[in-house]
């Protein structure tokens, strides 16, 4: 009887023993690679121990029940340095919250690979360069806030195909050209685009090229 009642327990044990203890931890490696290039004066990343089997107990990282990273919450953390292309390897990421830090350099094209991303908050950093055209692949995206950076260039027309996009904020940058009017852009208020001195109002399709004045 006793041995019978132990059966499920031993089955669990068997699973424990059989589960791969040393697995390839590509998401942890990606995050660790990101970390190595960052300056973190307040030690918010100190728990990011690459020798752990997965990053799910790293603080500011959240996994789903299959140990895949779905959130990165590092707003207001005094972090500086570049946004590594490694972030693009977090295939299951839904929330990328890196607002109000000192991230600098370009937004990597690879972020366009985050097909499950729902929210990208990069506002309040020192990001430069253009908004990647690859963002047109972020089909799940609902919130995109890139305001208060130093972004240049035009608003990629690819963003107009993001049918789930509910909120966009590109204000306080150095964008140029015109604002798309298709798709979700028909509903965005003008405040989402203000303080871009070279942004010339809504797109006049067929009359003026969209990147007019860039």
């Amino acid at each position, binding site marked *: 009887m006793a041995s019978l009642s132990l059966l499920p327990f031993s089955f669990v044990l068997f699973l424990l023993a059989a589960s791969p203890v040393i697995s390839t931890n590509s998401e942890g490696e990606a995050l660790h690679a990101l970390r190595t290039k960052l300056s973190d004066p307040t*030690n918010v990343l100190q728990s990011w121990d690459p020798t752990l089997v997965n990053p799910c107990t790293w603080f500011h990282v959240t996994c789903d*029940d299959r140990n895949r990273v779905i959130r990165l919450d590092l707003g207001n953390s005094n972090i500086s340095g570049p946004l590594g292309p490694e972030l693009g390897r977090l295939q299951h990421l839904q929330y990328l919250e890196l607002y109000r830090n000192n991230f600098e350099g370009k937004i990597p094209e690879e972020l366009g690979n985050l097909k499950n991303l729902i929210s990208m908050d990069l506002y309040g950093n020192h990001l430069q360069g253009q908004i990647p055209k690859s963002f047109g692949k972020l089909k799940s995206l609902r919130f995109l806030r890139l305001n208060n950076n130093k972004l240049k260039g035009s608003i990629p027309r690819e963003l107009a195909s993001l049918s789930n996009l509910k909120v966009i904020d590109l204000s306080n940058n150095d964008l140029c050209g015109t604002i798309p009017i298709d798709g979700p852009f028909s509903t965005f208020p003008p405040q989402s685009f203000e303080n871009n001195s070279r942004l010339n109002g809504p797109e006049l399709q067929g009359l003026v090229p969209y990147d007019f004045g860039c």
Partner: protein
Amino acid sequence: MAKLTSSTTHGVLVLSLCLLLLHIFSPALSLETTKLRGSCVASERDALLTFKEGINTLHGSLLSSWEGQDCCRWRGVLCSNKTGHVVKLDLRVNLDEFPWASMSSNISPSLLALEHLNYLDLSFNYFGGQQIPKFMGSFKNLKYLNLSNANFGGSVPPQLGNLTMLRHLDLAGNYNLHLVDLVAWLPRLSSLKHLDMSYVNLSAAVDWVQALSMLPASLRILDLSYCNLNATLASLPLYSSNITALVTLDLEGNDFHGPIPDWLLGNMTSLEEFWLRGNDLVGMMPETMKNLHKLKVIDLRWNQINGDIAELMERLPHKIQSLYLGGNNLNGSLPNWIDNMTSLSTLDLGYNSLTGYIPSGIGKLTNLSYLELSSNQLVGMILEYHFTSLTRLETLYLYNTSLTMGVHPNWIPPFRLKEVDLSYCKLGPHFPAWIQSQTNITFLGMSSAGITDKLPNWFWNVISRVQYLDLSLNQISGVLPMTLEFLSTAESIILHSNQFKGRLPKLPMGLWYLDLSRNYISGPLPLNLGIVELNFLLLSNNLISGTIPSSLCNQLQSLEVLDLSNNHLSGQLPQCQTSGNSFRAKSDWRDVGCYLVIVSFYNNSLSAWIGTRLPNLVFLLLKYNMFSGHIPIKLSKLDHLQVLDLAHNNLSGTIDLSLVKFKAMTLTSPYTSDLNTIAANIVENIDVYSDPFSLFVITKGQILQYRKVNIFFLFSLDLSGNSLTGEIPEQIGALARLKNLNLSANRLIGNIPETINGLLSLESLDLSNNELFGEIPPILSVLTFLSHLNLSYNNLLGRIPSGGQLETFLDPTIYIGNNNLCGPPTSKNCSGNQTTMSDLPEHEDGYDMSSFYLSMGLGFAMGFWMIFGALLFKRTWRTTYFLFVDDICDRMYVFMVLKWARLNARIKKK
């Protein structure tokens, strides 16, 4: 690590005791150096006595034997048996004999009277950072000078360069030496054979390259390990200098970088030992290495050497005996012709990226005693022929490879191993029978090796000399013996995640770490465990029943981590006496009472509280027990407590104000992200045996297994699943380091306190299943790290605030069961006169905007109700008001009708 040092200290103590006894009982032995014929020269005796006067012998030293006329019979003094002159002065301090030996005063120049001195050893004395005396350069006949580890400081006097007869100079371990000008003295030591400057900081000696290039051709041994040298290896002046007859070159632990250049060792044909461990060297070993016919030892561990291992080995001279290449980036497979390297006794290729099979040729290396191939991607079988001639093998490390041990069950190995680690190899399903012949084993690692067998009866006898035993993560069955005391040298026993049965055995005295978690250990805890030094006792997930005997307190006085979770224990926790602790070998931070840092009893049936002071407690995990009544206020006096888990008990009463003042959970400085001192100390211990210890904590709605150092970054308060009443105290906002707060499934009432914004580190907040009411404070949006929120099943109302992290919680179920909550992410729209807030996304000034709208809404409501309320309750005002309105309407009606009539008339006229 701590354990290691403590055991070596023991050894050293015993050794020194023996030495002392020897000295007492056999004076002849201690006078060995002075029993030669010849009486002392008076002037030299006076010189020695003057020297003695200058030395502080407060704590006793060998100088105390310097009495009587014949100085040649004094300890450490050797006279020439022809001339009677003092030729050797060996004043090296044996730290075991005189641990406090002190020589802080000046060294008297009277020693210069010893004109015939050719040997002077002052090592391990303590000269308090003073300069090496200038007169040292005046011993014309000195051949041997040892000033190592004697705490000399400042610069080396250039006069030292006058010692042209000097063959051996040892300045090692004088950390305070400040060497800037080496050329001024070093190259003039024209007879030098042995130069040791290890652990001397040479980072300020800009001329070190030039000085090396000028060293005499007589040099045989050069030790520059741990000298803070930062240069490319190519800048070493080996090729251009005279020192081509070097036999030993030690450059370990510096910052040498770049590749090993082809030409570097070109004419160093006498080189036998080359030590380069712990630098930053890259690339492949040069082909010219093959020309170093006498090379026996090369140590390149923990560099960045890369390339194919076979190619590298081809470039080695055949006579190589010790090849250390662990911790580099080598790839490829071991070559078949490895059997040509017949001199190999040590082969360390661990922690590289080697692939493929282990060639059979390795079994022909008759001299091999140390084989380390751990953490490579090796595949295939290990068979008998891999070991055919390895009769001398003592150390075998194949940890974390993908190798399968395929030897015959009756195989009797030719070797007697001392240390073997085959963890994460495939050894099973049967328990490897060949272990039976390995009676010298001190280190046995066979974790996660796929063994699903009964532990053989012979096992415990065979490993009677073991210090470290790890059989975890297999399915080994069997009954544990009643006692393991016969494993008298055991320090760590790790058997977790197997199928061992029986009771907890009596344990060896010196045991430091015991992990029997996840087995079928049953019965009560024994009254007498017989252990004193145990630091970790991990017995979770077994079938242990009964109460926890209070005798445990006295026996487990060194215990730091106690994990008895998931057993069947009942009754109360032991009442430990704090006064009886006489054993306090380690200390400082452990002031009073038990040393316990982590206590985990979750999922038992315990019912009464810890009755003792546990001042060092960092983790207290009592989830799923039967504790009832109020939460004891004394818990808040645990200054280091950073995780308190009392979930799922029968606790009642309110959450006392003093309870939310856990000191360790509050923020003491702007960035207190560091570990608390006690935790840091534990972490040091855990890192040694890195993997086995872990803690399960429920946070973010998940069960997370915290390991290693991350355990100690967790700050958590979980009181869920009890019957707590009253409001959440406002003071909870002080717990700024808290990462997890779970108060769900209680009967808490009142508002969510506005002070919640003080929980700056919070990642997970669960207040669900209570009776909280009022609005959700919008200030919740300032918690930038919040990644999990659950407010479901309360009586909260109003619009769900937005902004910050709150916008990233799109799952409406976290608000479900609050009938009067509205706005996104719920599908319920907020009707007009409810508190309104902008639907606009959060801006940089988002919080100000929302408070603006909030006050606008409040203002409107206020104004509206001032008028409307008055009309509602005051009849005369109401009458007057409606009469006034009627009057206005009448006038308006008349005015409109008249206007309309006139307008019509005009149009018709036209």
